[in-house]
């Protein structure tokens, strides 16, 4: 059940260019892949909350990892430890956990945020976690040190070749799928997700993608954040906020 909670910021640090990590003093008991709607300003402008995925949650408090790219997130970036934020959540469906003994996680840029929480959860459930992380360049490859013990494999890729594989992260994905088809979870730019679903389909691997959308209510009421999905019954709009943000890959990309 989502709730509205005022929380206080414990830590707020710049961990990579434009990327901030915010640790809050309370938990919302979110599952990996769920998100929160955070209020960025006490005034009426900007008007809407901002949807941010849960980077971690538990006894240490709710953790958010976000890129300050627009007006709202830049206002959020100005907040200091001790400041309060208004959180609505947990929202959305979250990532499904399958019976498979291993999983491949494909992160693109800030899409790394929800996959870290998933990696920890999968590892704690006794599964092998192959974590593939792509970005434009090396300085955007932020991954918290606390996460690395949960990863069986961590591979990186950059568009400019400044770190890891020189090229799209989906090329690295293909190398791993050749060794065996396991479920593939992705979060990142649409182009990366589309390529990920296409590559995984060649190896008959199940895919789950976490989508982003312009969002107003976050609870399914306004129908503003819909995505076109392809199902047995034909095409239909589904709400990213409550029917997602996680969809099976073939449902949204074909």
């Amino acid at each position, binding site marked *: 059940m989502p709730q509205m909670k005022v929380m206080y910021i414990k830590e707020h640090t710049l961990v990579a260019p434009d990327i901030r990590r915010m640790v809050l003093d309370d938990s919302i008991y979110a599952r990996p892949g769920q998100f929160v709607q955070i209020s960025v300003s006490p005034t009426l402008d900007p008007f809407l909350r901002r949807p941010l995925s849960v980077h971690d949650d538990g006894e240490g408090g709710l953790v958010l990892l976000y890129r300050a790219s627009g007006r709202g997130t830049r206002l959020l970036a100005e907040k200091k430890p001790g400041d309060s934020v208004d959180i609505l959540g947990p929202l959305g469906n979250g990532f499904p956990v399958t019976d498979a003994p291993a999983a491949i996680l494909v992160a693109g840029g800030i899409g790394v945020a929800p996959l870290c929480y998933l990696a920890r959860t999968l590892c704690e459930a006794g599964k092998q976690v192959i974590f593939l992380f792509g970005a434009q360049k090396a300085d955007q490859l932020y991954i918290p040190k606390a996460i690395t013990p949960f990863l069986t494999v961590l591979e990186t890729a950059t568009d400019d070749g400044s770190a890891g594989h020189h090229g799209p992260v989906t090329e690295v994905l293909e190398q791993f799928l050749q060794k065996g088809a396991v479920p593939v979870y992705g979060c990142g730019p649409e182009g990366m997700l589309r390529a990920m679903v296409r590559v995984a389909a060649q190896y008959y691997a199940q895919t789950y993608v976490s989508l982003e959308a312009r969002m107003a209510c976050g609870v399914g009421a306004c129908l503003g954040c819909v995505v*076109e999905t392809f199902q047995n019954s034909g095409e239909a709009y589904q709400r990213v906020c409550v029917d997602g943000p996680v969809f099976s890959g073939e449902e949204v990309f074909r």
Partner: protein
Amino acid sequence: MNPDLTVNIGRLTMQNPVMPASGCFGYGEEYAPFFDLSRLGAIVVKGTTAEPCSGNHPVRLAETPAGLLNAIGLQNPGVKAAREKIRELAHCGVPVIVNVAGHSAEDYLRVIDFLEEEEEAAAYEVNISCPNVSAGGMAFGTEPCVVESLVGNLRRSTKKTLIVKLSPNVTDITEIARAAESAGADAVSLINTLLGMAIDTATRRPVLANITGGLSGPAIKPVALRMVWQVSSAVKIPVIGMGGITGARDALEFLLAGASAVAIGAANFTNPMVCPETVDGIADYLSENGFESVSRIVGLAKESLRPVTGGVCGCGKK
């Protein structure tokens, strides 16, 4: 003593003057986790059409200064599926007002015919003001003679309270309000969203797939308030005021301007508790200022004005 918040709109009796606006509250279930829905005066559900409607392609939203553009395009499951949701929602014990939409006069009649025997559908709000559909919607709400004919037809088909939701995208909203009144509407609600647009400078294309959308949120409140003021002077039937209300202070402005009740739209998105908070805020204001009922403040801002004789208009001419 607690002030009397009761409001009567046609045959509808509401325990207080606050309702969520159509399209901003789904069919109620989305907000049930946040507060007891029985605290509302009424619930206005999503625009409902005779057949299921898939709505517009995304992108459907664009945030603008202190506001929000939307172009949902009346996505709804159709009246048959909506009926089940309305029955479910009515369990909360407050009147459910069904927003009725259509692409032709016949569409509106089909929705009303389908729901007429349903006790759970307490009243209709006729949406002649949606700016985001290619046929119908706002097209019905911009010509007084079309409004009169459509509302007249609906009036003959229902005994239930008939509210007509007006578009602000007209030259003179009072003309449309009078047409609805003379055709037998029990009340008018206003305003629907203002037609607007936004352009993404990075892609150099309109943000919304529909190109234009309806503007809501605090940015439109002064325009809505002015129109409520004008319409409540032009008609004798009750006015339900809405447009940018984010709390009790805004709601009180609408009541003082002449609205008998208020609806809250986009503010539900930022504060799911805004409706019950507004009910409490109105009650506190009435108590603090010695009013025994909410009806005592409806249109009160007009009473304070002295009648103007002669006078000079803004352009300097007599």
